[in-house]
Structures are given as C-alpha cells and as structure tokens.
C-alpha cells in the first residue's frame, strides 16, 4: 500500500512539473510586451528596454523558467505588471473567497447528488425515480451562468431574500455566508445533476449484489441497507466523477465569480487577462492546474481507502 502511495506521489509531482512547463511555455509564446503594457504606448524604446532588463525578460527562456519555478516554490510569483504589488499578495487576498466557494460548491454538490441518486435508486422505475432523473437531465442541460442569472432575478431582484452579488468580507460572517448562497447554488445545482445520475446507476449496480440481500435478511431497514451497505460499495465510480468534476468546479468559480462580482481568484484572472498582466495570469493558471492535479491525486488515494481489495491488488 505504501508502495502504491509512493508511486502515486511520484506521478503527482511529475504531472505538476509537466504542467509548469506547459503553462510557462504557453505564456511566453503569447504576443504582448509586458514593458509596453506597464509603461504605455507613449513610452520610449529605451525606457521599455530598461524595464525589460529590470524584469529579467532579456534573459534566456530556460533561465527565466528556472527563476520562476524557484520563486514559485518559495511562494514568490513575482510582481504584478498592472497592480504593481507582489502576485502572491494578490492571490493570498482572494484565495479564501474562491476556496470557500469551491469548497461549499463541492460539499453541496456531493450531498445533493448522493441524496438524489440514492433516493432515485431506491425508487427505481417508479415516479420518484423519473422525477429526479427529469430534474437532473434539466440540470445537465442548463449552463451555470444562465442559471446564475435566473437565481439572481428570482431571489435577489424579485424576492429580495439574498444579495445579487458582491462580497462584504468575512468581518460579517452572516452577510458573507448570505452572499455565498446563490453562487454556491449556481455551482452545485449543475454539478450535482451529473453526479446524481452517476450515483443512481452505481447504486443500482450494487443493489443487485448478493450481500445486499444478506443485509436485508439480517433485518436491516432499507435506509440502513442503502446508506451503509450499498453506498460505500458504489463510492469508487462516484469518487472518480467527483475528481473529474472538481476541474469543472474550479473553472466554474471563474465564471460564477464574474457573474456575482465576487472578488476571488476567478475575477482576478479575468482582470489580469484584460490587463495583459501575464505574470499574474501565469501564476493563477499554475495554481488552478495544481488544484486539479491535487484533486486527482486525492481521488487515487481515496480508492484504496474505500476498497480493501485494491490495497493488495495495487501493492
């Protein structure tokens, strides 16, 4: 088992390295002169050349890459071209909001999907099942940004229950949570629609197995059998999809933050792209990619935690 984890860890680190190469390469072939962005079109060529030298942009690509990686490992992503402050500071300011949004989105997605999926499986072929499947089909078909606008129209504009956007900061936790409700719902409803279907079919698959009959014959109620015997055995496909969905969730926060005017990493990414602030964009893309790679690593670890048979099979 420790061999398996060590191998996965090696794979995880290799993937991160590959991602860093790709991100750096892409950012450096993109057109646009940072010196021009910072100094403006009225600047002289001498001033721009001097700035490029100060930013290290006149160095060979390999050296710049190594410099960037060494800095990133220390948490130093350089100085933002457009904001004029360290990128790490910009990220640290906005990370808690994006992290809260992604986490609450993931938690609500998983809870909603498990309840809906297991309920549908328990009512297989009956109206409850059809209803849930119809809803989830709609959820899959609806784009998150459009759902966000509908939610704002209904709950913020018409009913005035929740703020339409913006974030007051964690100084006022109630207001902060209230402003996260609609973005979380917009993220989770669409994601959970997919996951609910996966949960349902995985549960149906498991419900046919003999040990489920043993559990019933041992006098356990159907709810206990479903949640304690069927669900754990259905978790491997569910966790796989959760890992894949995490990437969708992270990119989802970029869209959602812009719809709801939330000052998170997604909005920062948008602004940085608009400002041609390549060094910030580069750090953010690397960060998002690292999050997704980490999620997939955790999914691999989850497999062996869930299923004792895999511990031996995978050494």
């Amino acid at each position, binding site marked *: 088992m420790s061999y398996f984890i060590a191998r996965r860890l090696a794979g995880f680190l290799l993937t991160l390295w590959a991602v860093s190469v790709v991100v750096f390469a892409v950012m450096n072939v993109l057109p646009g002169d940072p010196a021009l962005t910072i100094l403006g079109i009225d600047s002289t060529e001498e001033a721009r050349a001097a700035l490029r030298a100060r930013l290290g942009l006149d160095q060979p690509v390999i050296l710049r890459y190594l410099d960037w990686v060494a800095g990133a490992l220390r948490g130093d992503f350089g100085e933002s071209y457009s904001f004029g402050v360290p990128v790490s500071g910009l990220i640290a300011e906005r990370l808690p909001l994006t992290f809260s949004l992604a986490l609450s989105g993931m938690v609500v997605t998983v809870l909603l999907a498990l309840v809906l999926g297991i309920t549908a499986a328990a009512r297989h072929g009956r109206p409850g099942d059809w209803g849930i499947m119809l809803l989830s089909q709609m959820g899959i078909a609806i784009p998150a940004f459009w759902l966000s606008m509908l939610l704002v129209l209904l709950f913020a504009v018409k009913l005035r229950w929740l703020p339409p956007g913006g974030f007051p900061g964690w100084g006022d936790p109630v207001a902060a949570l209230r402003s996260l409700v609609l973005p979380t719902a917009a993220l989770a409803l669409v994601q959970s629609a997919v996951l609910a279907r996966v949960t349902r079919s995985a549960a149906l698959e498991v419900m046919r197995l003999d040990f489920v009959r043993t559990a019933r014959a041992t006098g356990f109620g159907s709810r206990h059998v479903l949640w304690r015997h069927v669900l754990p055995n259905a978790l491997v496909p569910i966790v796989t999809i959760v890992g894949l969905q995490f990437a969708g969730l992270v990119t989802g926060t970029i869209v959602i933050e812009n719809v709801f005017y939330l000052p998170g990493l997604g909005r920062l990414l948008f602004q940085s792209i608009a400002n041609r602030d390549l060094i910030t964009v580069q750090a953010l893309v690397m960060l998002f990619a690292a999050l997704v790679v980490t999620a997939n690593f955790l999914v691999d670890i989850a497999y062996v935690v869930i299923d*004792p048979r895999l511990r031996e099979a995978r050494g």
Partner: protein
Amino acid sequence: MIEVEGLSITSAAGPILRDVGLHVAPGERLGVVGESGSGKTLLAMSLMGMVPDGLSVTGSIRIDGAEMCGADESAWRRLRARRMAMIFQEPMSALNPLRRVGDTVAEPLIRHLGLAPRAARDKALALFDETGILDPERRLSQYPHQLSGGQRQRVLIALALACDPELLIADEPTTALDANVALRITRLLVRLAEERRMGLLFISHDLAAVSRTTERLMVMYGGDVVETGATAEVLRAPAHPYTAGLLSARPSLAAHGKRRLPTIPGSVPPPQELPRGCRFSGRCGQEIARCAAEMPQPVTTAPDSWAACHLLQARAKGAGA
C-alpha cells in the same frame, strides 16, 4: 416454530409455487430437494418475507402463531435475524466486501440487540468459535476476500446465528463449496440445530447433503410438493417417479465405469409451459394416459408421508378392490 399451509405464489405469467405446506419445530431439520426451477429458493424467500416485487403470495405462513402472509415489510423486518435467519448459496458474494467480517457479524448485535461495540466484538468472537472458524481472533479483522469459501460460509452462519434465531434457512449452502468443505458445513449445521434446539430448513439439490443433514424431506417439482416423508425412508424407497429419478441420477463410486449415469431427460419447464396435469408428465418414464390431463392427489404412503402420483392412486385402488 414455523407453519406453512396452502402457500401459493403467482406471477403475471402463472403460478410458481402451488399449495405448499410445511412445519418446522424447534430442533427439527427439514430438507427441500428439487432441480433448479422447482421453486425451492422462492419458498425460502417467502419464509423470510423477501418475495420479489410483482409476485402475489396467498395461503398461510404462521411464525410463532402470528400470521405473516400479507404482513408488511416492517413486521417482517422485526422477525428477520431474531426469529429466522438465512444463509445463501454463494458465500463468495454474500458478504459486504468493504467490511471486516467481524464488523459484519457485530452489526446485528449492535443494531438489533443493543450491544456495545466491545461486547458485540466478544460475541462475534464466540460465534466464530462456535461455527468452527480457524484462528477466530485474527479473522475478525479480515476482509471477505482474504477468506476461503468454507470460512466465508462459516462467517455467514455466524452472522445468521447472531440474534439466536429459532429457524435457520439454508439455501444451497454447500453448492458452491468443494465436497470436503461441504461435508463439514453440513455437519456443523446439524450440530448447531441440535445444540441450539434450532429449526433447520435445508434446501439443496444434493441428495447426499440432504440425507446427512435432515430428518424429514420434501421433494419439489415445478412449484409443487410431489413427495414428503422421513428423509431415510424417502431416499430408501422413493414413491414418486421424480424422486426415484433424482436418486438414480446420483453419481456413485460403485457404478463408476459400468454404466452411463442415468439422467432425467430435459429440464424443468418455465412456469407458463408446465403441463396442466401432473407437472412431471412429459419427462416421467412411467407416464399413463391421465398424467398429462389430471392433477394427481396426494396418496399417504406411511404415517406423515405422502406422494402425489397417479400410479400410486391406481395401485392403492387396486389393493383396495
């Protein structure tokens, strides 16, 4: 104490089980034999209240005097594990693969009997010991895939015994095991029934296993009971041609190489294609004219024994005249 009378189970396509009667008292061991498709497993499931959806059950199933036919799921659930328990054919797949077998056996002790986890573990250890599981202490924390088929079947028996049921239903418990292991499992079941004064309903198509395990025997064909009586008597002198057919289809060492193993031609037809008269007509070697058209009535062959066959009826009339 379980008493079944006139039990019939019908699907949309037709009857699958017809007019079955049986009773098992504490300490009694009843065998049910028949080919695949004879309705044995469905009979067992009906005694657990686990008949699949879409089948209608009529007749009477009395458990400790309470009528359970038509009872709802929650009434059945209260009886499962505590009054009657069941073990299944496939010990390979009948255990939750993600749970340590000790936890599986402790689960009903905690949930049904309210034992503390520590006490439940001790009781599970005692049950492992009672069911002859080797190295029980270590087994408690192993997963099903780490055990052999015979050990898994013992774990399932330990699970079934957890809440001290009055009746143990064993549905082909030895079919998936090799002969030596099967022999030990049947011995274990007999010992447990005797020591615990527990009823045993032993379902099998293996006549050797049934003869080792049970005192009384019920032979089923196509959803009907065709013969019943003391196990030793029925196997010594089968009254129904189907029982005789099953017996002669048994491989034996003495006959090896001297003759082809006789078989009953064909297989049990699906319920909607069963003949209108005697269910066995069409496959029976001793058929007479009325067999295909008319249902044979039970004929008493010995005290508490009968068989349903037109040949017996004809013979009984001949003897009476």
